[in-house]
């Protein structure tokens, strides 16, 4: 295996590589690390580390302050949710499935509900489609408010994170009004949703969106035109173009590498074909461009929520009549449904054997490829100080790796 040199032209402060420091690569692709040689130090980054989103460990081998080998370890969160669902009625699965990704539970609710509806051929009411899209975009917004400034947070610039988390709290307030829950919303269920917009919701939403507009200007000044941030992110953690397909890179990480990939555009679902936005792509594919893509996603999400609020119907049925949820047998078959989460394509593969409980529920989460195989490659050559910046730039969510 050859380790490609990073493009140093963009960042003069990047150090040059001295290949002699690196361990030999054996035929099986593993690095030949002889700790007794005193050339290397092995440290554990996580599982309990403030820079790790959720519990995941990186086993890093260092030469000096450079990472020469990285290995991702998961298993700290494993609660067997996919397996648990095989023992539950379909309706009982949805309080379980939200836990597959804590930060954005709504995508799990949507995909499980959609799988059931696809398999049993159920068309949901129009109002429910808009409300679903609204809750999905709100979830994306809540995540991006934390993630966009969070990238600077990994480099010890915590101010933006504080602003973002405050605004995220306001979105959670709105979630509480709409869904009855702050973190696990449990709003989208097979057949539709669990409530119409409360009175005055649109007005309160607009008030929060105005604050988020101001916030966007503020983080542009604080983070994206910031010499330190640029120096610490430009040219770091580059995903080479050829890696995008072979490593299954999706979402903002692919868009930052020049691939215009967005499930909402490529395979429109719900009412996304009625909304208007452009896919923002960049070419450099480093931490900085991924941050910029997410920064753009934030702007687009605010815009999409405004469009949804303007176009959605005021009332109507919220749920299609389904068979009795206590005996609901889903016809035999299998289905793969997908949606665009803030991290990229997020899909559910559901197999039904015709019984009341799913035979198999399998989550295709972007973190599986991003944080395990891809991250192990990106970290080689990196400075120890950049490790969690690179990891966060991939927007890793460990719960969806070990479900």
């Amino acid at each position, binding site marked *: 295996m050859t380790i490609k040199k990073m493009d140093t032209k963009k960042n003069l402060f990047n150090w040059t590589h001295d290949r002699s420091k690196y361990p030999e690569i054996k035929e099986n692709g593993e690095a030949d690390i002889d700790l007794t040689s005193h050339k290397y130090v092995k440290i554990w980054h996580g599982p309990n580390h403030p820079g790790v989103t959720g519990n995941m460990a990186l086993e890093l081998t260092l030469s000096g302050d450079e990472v020469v080998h990285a290995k991702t370890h998961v298993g700290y969160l494993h609660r067997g949710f996919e397996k648990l669902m095989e023992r539950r009625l379909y*309706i009982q699965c949805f309080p379980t499935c939200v836990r597959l990704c804590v930060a954005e539970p709504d995508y799990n609710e949507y995909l499980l509900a959609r799988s059931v509806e696809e398999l049993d051929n159920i068309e949901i009411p129009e109002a429910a489609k808009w409300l679903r899209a609204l809750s999905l975009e709100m979830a994306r917004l809540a995540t991006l408010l934390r993630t966009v400034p969070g990238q600077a947070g990994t480099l010890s610039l915590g101010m933006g994170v504080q602003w973002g988390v405050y605004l995220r709290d306001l979105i959670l307030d709105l979630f509480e009004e709409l869904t009855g829950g702050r973190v696990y919303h449990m709003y989208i269920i097979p057949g539709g949703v669990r409530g119409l917009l409360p009175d005055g919701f649109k007005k309160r939403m607009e008030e929060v969106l105005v604050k988020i507009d101001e916030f966007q200007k503020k983080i542009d000044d604080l983070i994206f*035109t910031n010499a330190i941030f640029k120096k610490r992110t430009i040219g770091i953690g580059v995903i080479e173009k050829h890696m995008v397909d072979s490593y299954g890179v999706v979402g903002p990480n692919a868009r930052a590498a020049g691939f215009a990939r967005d499930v909402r555009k490529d395979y429109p679902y719900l009412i996304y074909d009625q909304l208007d936005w452009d896919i923002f792509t960049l070419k450099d594919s480093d931490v900085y461009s991924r941050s910029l893509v997410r920064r753009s996603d934030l702007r687009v999400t605010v815009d999409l929520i405004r469009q949804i609020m303007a176009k959605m119907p005021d009332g109507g049925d919220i749920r299609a009549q389904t068979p009795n*949820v206590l005996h609901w047998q889903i016809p035999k078959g299998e289905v793969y449904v997908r949606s665009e989460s803030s991290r990229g394509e997020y899909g559910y593969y559901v197999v039904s054997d015709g019984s009341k409980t799913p035979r198999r529920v399998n989550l295709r989460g972007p973190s599986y490829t991003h944080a395990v195989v891809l991250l192990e490659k990106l970290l080689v050559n990196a400075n120890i100080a950049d490790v969690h910046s690179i990891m966060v730039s991939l927007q890793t969510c460990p719960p969806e790796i070990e479900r």
Partner: protein
Amino acid sequence: MALKDILTPFTVWKNVFKEVVSVKDPLNDRPGAARYRGFHVNDVDKCIGCGSCEVICENEAIDLVAVKEATLGNSGLRPMVDYGRCCWCALCVDVCTTASLRLTNEYTWVSENADDFRYIPGVDAKPWDNNELGWKKPEPNYHFYGEKRQDMGELHPEERDHSFIEMIKGFSKEQAMLEADRCVECGICIAACPAHMGIPDYIKAVREDNIEEGFKVLYDTNPLPEICGRICTHKCETVCSVGHLGEALSIRWLKRYIADQVEANDYKKILKTDGITNDGKKIAIIGSGPAGLSAAHYLALMGYSITIFEQFAHAGGMMRYGIPSYRLPYDQIDKDVNYILSLGVEIKYNTKIGKDISLEELKFGYDAVFAGTGLHLGRSTGIPGSDHENVYQSIDLLNKITEDIEIYVPEKVVVIGGGNVAMDITRSMARLQKIKYGKVGVIATALESEENMPADREEIVEAREENAIVNPGWGPQSIEIKDGKITGLHVNKCLSIFDDEGRFSPKFDENNKQFFEADMVVESIGQGMDLGYITEDVKKDLEFGPRGRVVVDEYFQTGVNWLFIGGDIIQGPDVIHGIANGHKAAVGIDKFLNK
């Protein structure tokens, strides 16, 4: 890297002069949202303890515990919530069949005692009990199970008003499966059914299209499913938990659906009763009504040798002689009866105890006797003119219609009575008039007001569809007779039926009178029992309770240990009580003979 990149970040300092926003106290600044899923409250008076919340809870956080005395339609159980398990998904609220369970919008609850977090909402007092906000069952059109019944096909009034063919068409397979899907399997119905039929089990069999299994479940507790599937008083449907927020399940029609699907020839194969032998002790049964047939069926399965004595020419008792065939066709009675006879039960028709054979003879010829002789004596109002030859008892007329004996059918008839039998004779007379004259002239009048009439609502509605007039709330005063012929019935408006102590003492408004023209008056104000067959010798050892009913023990055994009595003369009156009595008496007789 531009100079701008070095300078702009410092603009953040301007925030120093801004108001601090990131310090929030959610408990005081803002209460929980109106829909917030906080802590459970339960309106325990509204809750019926159906247990759907317990079933749907994926975390097994809800247990049903005994809180109240169980009554019909109310298990007396109430949910206990364990907050060590609850995930606040509120599925329990969404599925609640009475909308009694909800969550308040409280955020926090502090207690030093861990056991506090396992509590019975609505019973264990909590500070949030009176909080009206929080998660409630979502609206609109949000149902976890079908709210409306499947429509039952029936003959249109113009198709049925001139014939006695069955008017209810029965469910198709699709309809039956959709109807069965609405069941929440709470089992509240089992307790309400006098025969305690395994209702959720046979509904499940319909849902899973397993007719044979359903049929077996029916016969566990009810050997007359074709009959009960048509004319049962369906106490199960009255208490059905699904009926609290929607329409109760059509349990009766589902039972009929199962029975209708099975061919008479397959009964023995499915019920595995081919090898039944009846060589045990001999038991005599008086009357082939529901109680007698039920006792005969279960005793035959136990191997006893059964003989039924029936005063009429056909089996079925009041089911055949009291219920018109448009509600219960004779071939369906035969289907149920023939199976019971095929188990080796012997039946002696046209044999009346006390006339053709005495009770004493039964005592010496048999090891035990079960009497289910029913209520076959019509009661008269006793008003002036009620002794006229054209004043009839409904039960006598219904008997004759069954036997195909011609009866007097004038153009104008008044029926006195507000029960189902009154509706039966009203609708039967309407049919006979339609056939004879091409028009209907029946008035049914009752003491009770329309909402208090004891007849089933659908009977009243269907009678009107068939052009009979149902005019309740009038008390009969006298029958006017001119030149030896009835001209009509004088009635006064009925103000109240019972006095303050609940005794029958109707009060009339003398100033509000009406006259119903009629050539014939039919009295249908209830039936009495004829215990004339019980000899003095036996009677002296029997104990009699209120209204002349014989006192029996839980197995329907009387003070005379070889004599068991059940059916309408003990409980009811209806078919399902008779079936339940017969079954229980069969167990009692078996115990008595094997002790």
